[in-house]
């Protein structure tokens, strides 16, 4: 399998490096210089380096980026690329579970713990124990908690940061128990359940939906003492696979499950049972394409006032029920390179929070931010653009596409619901807390203007 494993900081410093085998012949003396060469190559691609490529030393380097950090490894063999990338993802996840947050500082502070973890997670480059839960019994070092917000926020690239709902540091007391005792301490018994849906929607200029998919998952983070069995029930009428459902029933195209999930009751009652491992884990992933109501509609119009003046109007209509709202909404509209002046006005409807729109010259686009869009309302932004030359079709084409980012708390588009979550623990005084959350986020929510 893989020859070595390393974590690089956003500046290319090696924070963690571990060699599992000697594929290069020399005794790893130049290890660091090879990693540096690799980092330069990644930079050369302007952060768009494909996740697997071969370096002049004859080894293939594979890597993933998490929170600005590069988790990478090299191999001389024809390994399964998917396996290695999944493995790197898993390592990143376990590190996060143990450190609380994934940042350069957290890794540096906890490096002995992490080396110990790596020894257990991989032997001779082969994945061994990779579940946070199972690792507990063979890992002895204690994590040093790093303040998750303070220093890390600069490092974190919001695009790649995990969408996990729970931001409190994880597994704070996890391995004090080790093999030695069960954790019936004063720890709070709680479990977080997120039903997370990311939307990919593409609108045409006249408002039609050209393409739409939902990437959904149910993820959990468990702090339940004694790891009791859980039963999670979904909608009874949930239909799997397109074209075989009845009208109106929630339908998903495809669904896959974590292998801890027992599916014996899934066919009949749409109920899953499993013992939640510690830490963050995905219970199931699902995918929906096509017919669903998009939460927001984007209606753009461009008017040529005279040869050098354009007026762009964008209307956003929130089509979800009135008791829900879109939060942290941003709308980006790229303008032509020859834009001289652009002034924006916002017509806010009642109920929306602070809203503003301005032209950001450096990025060449209008950034319209809205704190809140309540369901059933309409928001409009008007922008008068003056060009430094006469408008041509080519210049018109430079406007757009409009890209929208948002989050809708406590709402999901697919109608997949958790009917109940039962915790099978009958101990006296065992009062587990269940936090079930629905979140809809934009993944790629785009409207074309041509």
């Amino acid at each position, binding site marked *: *399998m893989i020859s070595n494993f390393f974590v690089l900081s956003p500046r290319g410093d090696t924070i963690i*490096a571990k060699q599992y085998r000697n594929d290069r012949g020399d*005794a*790893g*003396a130049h290890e660091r210089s090879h990693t540096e060469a690799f980092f330069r190559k990644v930079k050369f691609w302007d952060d*768009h*380096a494909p*996740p*697997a490529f*071969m370096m002049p030393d*004859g080894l*293939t380097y594979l890597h*993933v980026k998490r929170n600005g950090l590069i988790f990478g490894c090299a191999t001389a*063999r*024809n390994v*399964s*690329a*998917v*396996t290695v*990338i*999944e*493995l*790197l*993802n898993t390592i990143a996840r376990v590190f996060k579970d143990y450190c609380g947050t994934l940042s350069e500082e957290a890794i540096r502070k906890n*490096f*002995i713990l992490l*080396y110990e973890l790596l*020894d257990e997670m991989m*032997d*001779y480059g*082969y*994945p*061994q124990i990779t579940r946070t839960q199972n690792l507990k019994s*063979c890992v*002895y070092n204690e994590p040093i908690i790093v303040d998750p917000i303070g220093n890390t926020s600069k490092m974190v690239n919001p*695009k790649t940061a995990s969408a996990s709902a729970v931001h409190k540091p994880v597994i704070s007391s996890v391995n004090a128990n080790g093999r030695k005792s069960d954790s019936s301490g004063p720890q709070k018994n709680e479990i977080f359940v997120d039903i997370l849906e990311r939307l*990919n929607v*593409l609108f045409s200029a006249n408002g039609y939906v050209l*393409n739409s998919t939902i*990437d959904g998952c149910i993820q959990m983070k468990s702090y339940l003492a004694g790891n009791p069995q859980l039963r999670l029930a979904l909608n009874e009428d949930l239909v799997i*696979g397109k074209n075989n459902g009845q009208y109106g029933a929630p339908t998903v*195209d*495809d*669904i*896959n*499950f*974590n*292998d801890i999930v027992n599916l014996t009751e899934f066919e009949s009652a749409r109920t899953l049972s499993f013992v939640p491992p510690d830490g963050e884990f*995905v219970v199931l*992933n699902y*995918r929906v*394409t096509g017919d669903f109501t998009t939460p927001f509609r984007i209606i753009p119009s461009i008017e040529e006032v005279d040869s050098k003046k354009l007026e762009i109007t964008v209307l956003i209509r929130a089509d979800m029920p009135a008791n829900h709202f879109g939060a942290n909404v941003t709308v980006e509209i790229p303008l032509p390179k020859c834009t001289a002046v652009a002034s924006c006005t916002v017509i806010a409807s009642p109920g929306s929070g602070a809203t503003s729109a301005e032209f950001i010259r450096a990025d060449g686009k209008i950034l319209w931010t809205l704190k809140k869009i309540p369901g059933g309302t309409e928001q409009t932004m008007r922008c008068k653009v003056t060009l430094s030359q006469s408008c041509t*079709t*080519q210049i018109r*084409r430079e406007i757009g596409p409009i*890209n929208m980012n948002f989050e809708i708390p406590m709402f999901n588009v697919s109608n997949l619901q958790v009917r109940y979550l039962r915790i099978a623990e009958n101990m006296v005084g065992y009062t587990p807390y269940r936090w079930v959350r629905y979140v809809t986020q934009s*993944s*790629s929510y*785009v409207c074309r203007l*041509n």
Partner: protein
Amino acid sequence: MAKGKDGGGGGNSNDSKYFTTQKKGEMHELRMELHATEKHVKVDAVKKVIASMTVGKDVSMLFTDVLNCVQTGNIELKKLVYLYLINYAKTQPELTLLAVNTFVKDSADANPLIRALAVRTMGCIRVDRITEYLCEPLGRALRDDDPYVRKTAAVCVAKLYDIAPELVAERGFLDTLHDLISDSNPSVVANAVAALSEIAESSGKDVMKVSAAVLQKLLAALNECTEWGQVFILDSLAKYTPADGREAEGIIERVTPRLQHANSAVVMSAVKVILSYMELMGSSNIRSDAIRSLTRKLAPPLVTLLNSEPEIQYVALRNINLIVQKRPHILENEIKVFFCKYNDPIYVKMEKLEIIIKLVSEKNIDQVLLELKEYSTEVDVDFVRKSVSAIGRCAVKLERAAERCIGVLLELIQTKVNYVVQESVIVIKDIFRRYPNRYESIIATLCDNLDTLDEPLAKASMIWIIGEYAERIDNADELLDTFLETFEEEDPAVQLQLLTATVKCFLKNPEDTQDMVQRVLDLATEESDNPDLRDRGFIYWRLLSTDPEAAKMVVLGDKPVIEDDTFRLDPGLLNVLIGQIATLSSVYHKPPEAFVVRRAAGISADDDEEDDDDENYEDGDTGEGDLLDMGGMNINDSRGATASVYETKSPMNKVCGAEKSNGIEVYAGFRQVNGTIRMEMQMNNISSPAEIQGLAIQLNKNSFGLSPTSQQISCNPPIAPGSSGIATVELVVTPNMLAPQSANQPASPQVQIAIKNMQTGTVFYFAVDFNLEALFSQDGTMERSVFIESWKSIDDRNELYGTVSDIPPENLDIDTVINKFKANNIFFIARRPVPNAEGQEVVYFFMRTITQMEFLAELTFKQGVTACKICLKTENSSYGLLAKQAIEYLLRDF
């Protein structure tokens, strides 16, 4: 290694005194702490040591001090010490030897974690001496009660094999690993499979051979295993070839649920197994239904992979690229999911484009064009160019949509964006070549944009268009003339195009362009120092001056129409890659041997030889036999045309004449001796100046995957001029050397060989026909009932008939035949008289090759007739003919 040592000690280095003492002080302090009595001080001290180690400081001088700390019942401290040891195990193995006693002692500790730690660490120390100590504990660990120890031990066997393969064989550890496949603990199973697969891969030996029993074990373990274990098992299954379609279907059924796994590695490996086995399911009606339903099952998980992290998406897309080439139906209706998202990383977008082009059809072309047009307004230049080029490729692929595609391209040209125009011109040239004389109306638009073109490829394309359609462009000569002004500065590709275009122009319109053509020819032949350009210039010149009509036929002749196959993989390669789904090979779209450096696994070979090996290997690999292409040089096709000169059973044929090899005549043949395949060569030194002593041999890829175990052949005693001698080459079968086979064509028996005479440096090539009997395996027996089942299950279309006549009388006795066949690993199954036919008897034989191909034969003898009827059945139909020939040969010539 020495480097690390001086770094830290630094007694006589140039460091300032202060700094040195400071360091010493630090080390001293640490040393004191390591010897402290309080546990937590010790623990902290070891942690500090490790901290220094990881930032690159040398703390090896504390080795004995740290090692002392290992004498503790405290597992936390012990683990820390091991963390330190394992680091030096790799870089300073001789130091670690000091710790051997500790390892051996710990390997019998009461705590399983410590037992495992000891074994794990010892396996990482690559020193011969330590392996002696390792074997005992390892043997015990493999049978340990605790699964944690067993799983660690399983991986350790792979480590040991890398250092000392002979020890692994000696101790029977491979058999133990095989036993562990049915272990009760899933992690142990996973590691046993992983270790066996690794050993199989690095040794080239089939130690992970999947037999019927192993298959059942694997399938049983599949449900219980960890996610990684499932991947290892599925990958092993993918290498197995089911006996028939039914078995394949059975396994597929067990594998299909894995498609729902959340780990995409499991999904991809399952896809690989299913696609590889689908090949074997045949094409009868029932089967094609089954295949159709499988196809339906494969699409959703593949699409779901595209919702994973971008890194996974990338690998998935590279694989889907292969899958849509192999089985286009799977995703034919899913083109929409490959449309690029706004926020996809560029490497994902590029791969999606490739797949869009593969899936585009007349049904979805309008949608696709809309998308591609949109992409061509994006920011990333490479992506835009690829999108524009994709539009052209759609036109080349779909005749009916070509006009719409051209419309879009023209629209894009209007944008005047430099790189968009250039890319459009390049693809429009391809469209012109695909549909000659159909869309010339757009030439005018192209000509309007001449000034935009500054890239060689775009210029060359435009010039080609001008030359090709010179008669329809009023001012073709003027346009070319503008390019000619800068002729000397142009890229060679542009110069060549200019030369050709001018000549075309001249042939079409000689009056006005006489001067111009003269000028170009002068420039090309006299001013240029590019040999290609000069040569082409001279050819045109001579053509034009001797026979203008011939020139017309040559220069203006019909060109072959191009197809949209530029990006298609060769079917042979594609099949290889389908078997490699999920691996790096499928990401690079190259067979593994093209990028994995072959290593002499644990076998001590001297370095020079290894280098040499790699080099030759690369050469042999480029272009399917370019190097060794013998064209029509195959001298001796028919077996036995030259009388056997040597007394073995190898059918020796003259394969190389003295004129080709600088005086060496070669006769060669194959046979199997004690399970080893040998090529035997008789060398007659007719006129080679020196004694033939050392030879290097290289085989081209062949239908059997044969390759020599060693590339060096020595002739002992040396063959002096005028005498002859024997050279033997041992061969092994490796999948890497397997030439791609097309399914319906009989496999070629030819093995192409290159030999270098080390004395004279002469390299010569020849081909020998392989006789398949040398490949029959010694364990080719088969149960009678299984034989009957197989016989029935093989489709009648895979049957070969033939009659052998003129059999020597001694070979007509069936018992003799049975015995003689047995000596050649063709095994007797049954015999019976033919009912209602006096004096006729049928005999059934079975043979299996080392490569697991099976052949079933029915021979019919009739009393008093010196002939015999053969009927041969096999699933490996392309090799059937060779097996039949082998039988015929053995019957005729004992």
